[in-house]
């Protein structure tokens, strides 16, 4: 039987992998994938919390599940805009690496 803890560990791992990808990888597309993983980690733990914090009648708490749908929708919008911007960058410079983003400097 899977417990709430199992789900939370997996979602924590997903979040850590996503954050690691954002901080360590140098390709913007891979960084973007890491960001999406972080959002999905939140989705997984939300669903797990909703299932295990069942209400008196045994149904899951639907508020959290609705929030999951909002997160999925927003993530889709973010990907659409984000990829468009990355394409614009690639057309301009033929690169998608963070080292090449060096026009703006301290």
């Amino acid at each position, binding site marked *: 039987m899977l417990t709430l803890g199992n789900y939370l560990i997996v979602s924590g791992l997903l979040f850590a992998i996503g954050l690691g990808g954002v901080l360590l990888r140098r390709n913007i597309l891979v960084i973007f994938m890491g*960001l999406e993983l972080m959002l999905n980690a939140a989705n997984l733990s*939300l669903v797990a919390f909703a299932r295990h914090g069942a209400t008196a009648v045994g149904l899951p708490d639907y508020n959290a599940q609705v*929030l999951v749908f909002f997160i999925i929708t927003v993530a889709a919008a973010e990907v659409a805009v*984000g990829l468009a911007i990355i394409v614009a*960058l690639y057309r301009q410079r033929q690169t998608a690496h963070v080292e090449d983003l060096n026009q703006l400097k301290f």
Partner: protein
Amino acid sequence: MNPLYLEVAVVILGLLLLVAESFAGPGRKSGIAHPAITGLILIFIATFWVNPAALDASAPYARFYSTDSLAIFFKQIALLTTIVVLIMAQEFAPVVEANLPSSRRGAGLGEFYALPVFTCAGLMWMASAVDFVLIFVSLELVTISFYILVSYLRHDRLSVEAGVKFLVLGALSTGFLVYGITWIYGVTGQTNLNAIAAVIPALKVAAAPALLFGLGLVLVSLGFKVAAVPFQFWIPDVYQGAPTPITAFLSVASKAAGFVVLLRVLQTFVVVPYLQEKILPLMALLAGVTMVFGNLAAIPQSNLKRLLAYSSVAHAGYLLLGVASLGAPFVGSAILFYLGAYLLMTLLAFLVMTIVAKAVGGDDIADFNGLNQRAPQLAFAMLLAMASLAGVPLTVGFLGKLFIFEAAYQQGHFVLITIGIVTVAAGFYYYLKIVRAMYWQQAADPDAPGIPVGIAARITIAILCALIIWLGIYPAPLLSLIH
């Protein structure tokens, strides 16, 4: 009037603008700025007749949506900022046209006026959000529209680069926010801020670390939005690369909305003593570091947009000092007054900068050399904005800082007040650098003609100048709006 209609009206205005844009002939796209500005002014006037009591407290949406005076005041800030940003965008239109891929004149200009209207709707919802679901969705509406607006100049290398940096860091802060909300929900079983506040005192002590973890992640995300050190590193690059009107929009509206959410979230959690004694010292630490870093990093800057970016970090520090003083009797009013003052002086500075940069062709401080000979009125407006940002007495910026320091004094933050006063003095140095360039330096080309200013921009500059001086001497009207 029911306050819900305000956002609905803004969204409908935005949709109508998009329709008008698609039917407008080539070369006439810039015309949609006029209905956008007029419509927003009408909605702004309507906010003064809003009746919060018209909202049915038992209706389902009342769980998400609050109509207290804080919400109404921030809606007014959002609308006013958007109006000035659109006026700035009109002045900025030639630069946008030159940097779009299309060869047809004016193509792609329409969305530059329509998108800020949708951003404004997001900001207004954010002002009323009292549920993490609405906070998240409205925050994303704002952030995603800003991604597009920041990278709008697709042939400009700086703009696209700033867009990518903003995209990665904005999405990162979204990730933190969502994961933080998840943990707060997991501990309390609620997403509504009032319900969370009701649940927290009854929680077991063992649940406190998980709750603090979630709250910490949410605060990191809001730290990104309000530009608090150590989450400020995206600010200078994005501010410099973005189109100037959008930089103004980001620095005023985005920061104000970040602070309203921060206030609402903190007010939920500081009711419990063991959370309060962890959160408020953290805020005080952030405030101190932000004030010092923002002011020191601004000193060596030679680009005016970068300088204003660091100055916006510094102002976030003074606002955080107010947040750290939560509990003082009128600290809420002090923060709101500061935000109102910050709005007036920052918009004025960016408006003058947009006009001058268009005429001179650059936004370095050196480009402002000898502006007084070329355009004395613009130079005077900039002088006023800089004096107010620095905090010279008899301007609204001075009173803003005074109220914040007074609230901090009542809460006994003496070290922070000392840091604040020292950093304000440091601020005088870099703000006056611009004044020196305008009044005491020789222009590169002494015979350059005067700078043309559009009629709407002229009126806006006059109004902003008048408000900065008037509210600096007699702040009662703004204070009565806040209460």
